[in-house]
């Protein structure tokens, strides 16, 4: 189990880093798909089948395909050479700082004695359970998320619509 988890986690991490450092946007997007798959597998390991399925269907499937289409339609040019060297000092400083922070957190977390978690109920992570908690305890957040999505859609329309008036 543990080995599989670490393999998947490594895949997710490496693909995530690749998304950021790839120059070609299409490749970036494809690495993102890989990242999503790795994450979905980790969800499965954690017994969260529903989330895993949603992750693949919605993110890796629908959203990333849309992304790829947009990227191809926009026909983004390769950024000119030398772009990678701009703000090099900042990049190095920033990434080393971030690494240091993460390293510190990981170090501390590994040394912590974590109390054993509660055993899972057999139907944990099933669609029913997710649905149940979404429509009982998490009803308000669920509804509010719909407002959030609506707002994002409206915003996209406002910013993208062709000049009127």
């Amino acid at each position, binding site marked *: 189990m543990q080995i599989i988890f670490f393999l998947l986690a490594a895949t997710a991490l490496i693909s995530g880093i690749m998304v950021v450092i790839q120059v070609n946007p299409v490749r970036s997007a494809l690495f993102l798909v890989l990242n999503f798959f790795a994450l979905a597998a980790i969800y499965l390991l954690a017994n969260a089948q529903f989330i895993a399925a949603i992750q693949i269907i919605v993110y890796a499937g629908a959203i990333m395909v849309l992304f790829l289409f947009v990227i191809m339609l926009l026909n983004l040019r390769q950024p000119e050479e030398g772009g990678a060297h701009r703000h090099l000092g*900042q990049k190095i400083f920033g990434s080393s700082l971030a690494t240091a*922070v993460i390293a*510190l957190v990981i170090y501390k977390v590994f040394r912590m004695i974590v109390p054993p978690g509660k055993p899972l109920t057999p139907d944990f992570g099933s669609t029913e359970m997710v649905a149940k908690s979404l429509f009982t305890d998490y009803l308000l957040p669920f509804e509010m998320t719909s407002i959030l999505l609506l707002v994002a859609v409206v915003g996209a329309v406002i910013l993208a619509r062709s000049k009127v008036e």
Partner: protein
Amino acid sequence: MIQYVWLVPVFPLIGFLINGLLGKKISKNTVSLVGPGSVGLSFAWVLGCFWEYLHLPAKAKPVEVFVFNWITSGTFNAQAAFLVDPLSLVMLLVVSGVGFLIHIYSVGYMHDDPGYARYFSYLNLFVVNMLILVMANNFLLMFVGWEGVGLCSYLLIGYWYEKQSASDAGKKAFVVNRIGDFGFLLGIFLIFYTFGTVNFREVFAQAHNFPVGSAILTIITLCLFVGATGKSAQIPLYTWLPDAMEGPTPVSALIHAATMVTAGVYMVARCSALYVMAPISMTVVAVIGLATAFMAASIGLAQNDIKRVLAYSTVSQLGYMFLACGVGAFVAAIFHLMTHAFFKALLFLGSGSVIHGMHGEQDMRKMGALKNKMPITYAVMLVGTLAIAGIFPFAGFFSKDEILFKALTDGHVGYWAIASLGAMMTAFYMFRLIFMTFYGEKRWDHHVHPHESPPVMTIPLIILAILSTVGGFVGIPLIQGWNVFHEFLAPSIAHVAAGHEVHHSMTFEVMMMLVSMGVAGIGIFIAYKMYIKQPELPAQVTAKVPGLYDLIYNKYYVDEIYDATVVEPIKNGSVFLWQEADSKVIDGAVNGTASVVDRLSLVIRKLETGYVQNYALGILIGVAVITGYYLGR
């Protein structure tokens, strides 16, 4: 009437609202009626209260008039309530009385000014705040008045804003005053922290529970004194007052001589119960007062602008008041505050009359021989000068003599010596002013036709001259039973717990009086010698000690030093932070000279800030610091 004492500030407030909001719509005569009239009503009301207070049974005093609960919270309480006690009554009489006279005078002085209504609305607002300041029953309400008078002073100094110097002076006054206010506000916070209340009577009642010289009381009193140095123009915050003379002369008389600048003295006297518990602070107050008295007097020796001489004289006289406070003679300080209000208002208004008659000329070198052209002005100015110089029997004699006497007996012989030297200089520069202005040859330009001012201006002058003459009799120090002023004020003032009550013989007192008269006489004589007998002498003296003269003439270069050490670094710091912290490309045309911009843009090009990744980096650094703080331990 005392129960309705809150009406006292309400009258001028109504005046302010009428003049401020409707000033453009109502006629000039209405403005002239409303402005001084509202203050006159206040004065009348104060007189009534005073009369009633004198006849109150002793156990009903002092009176606290509750208006409404201003701030209430579980632990904290501040009321809008007024304290009527001898100290506040004296201040009320001075503020409303002198204020009333100056309002009347202004009717004549400002008659042709286009902003007539605006002027009176500011002046009324000032009176409102000043009255709140002296009537407040707690530190916080006092602070309201304190800030308010500062604001009005600033508005009135910059009243002729078309003059760059005037608006600069206004700004300077405000900024310097804020430094003082900082001390005052900190003092209030510390008082709240220590005593749990800001009510005067509660705080003072508790103060006795502290040991004499306790650190917290020393710090509190020093903070309060920082506030006082700002408002009352003491070292190191006195530089704004001479510049404040850019305002109209009645304003200088009201705010920068008679009332607002004495607020610091009032505050120290009000807090006498705290100060007597803090000997170190008392010494600081005395030394600062003494140093200011001496330094300002020496600067006054070499000034040629008639109002500036008076301004430095004010700074110097305020120094005497603080000296008195510092040696524990709070009553003497208030006494001098009162007589000073009379004669300094008189001198300022008199100088205003001279300036008015000279068509705005303020340089004494361009005056001379005005004695016959303006006889009334001359006469009243002479009265005022005799009073400030401390000549018997004018008001200043009694009050200043008491301060000098107390400095000797309760302070130190060194205090007395320096203060006496200052008094000599005072006599010298004041008579120099009189001689240069009214005697000698006429030096004015041929197109100037000096004339006496109209009665609306001279009548207040005459009243003030009478007050400057007889005002001292309430506090004749010699015979114990005769010092009415002392007895009246006693309930409001705390005394230094003196281990040894020394009784000085009457001969000693009389001798000291003669000595101080003699000192003043020497000053007058030198002035007479230099400016009447041998007019060539001043130039020779100057030539003998050029360094010293330059130093005094340039006011010890204090302004320049402040500029270089305080103002410039702050300005640079601001620009520096801006560049470092956010620095988008600066619009050079707006922000300064080309060379600065060149340098700036160089820096910016290197830093390339304004970029989103820099901001993100900032956030990341913050995150790193926080996680490091929590986990790196």
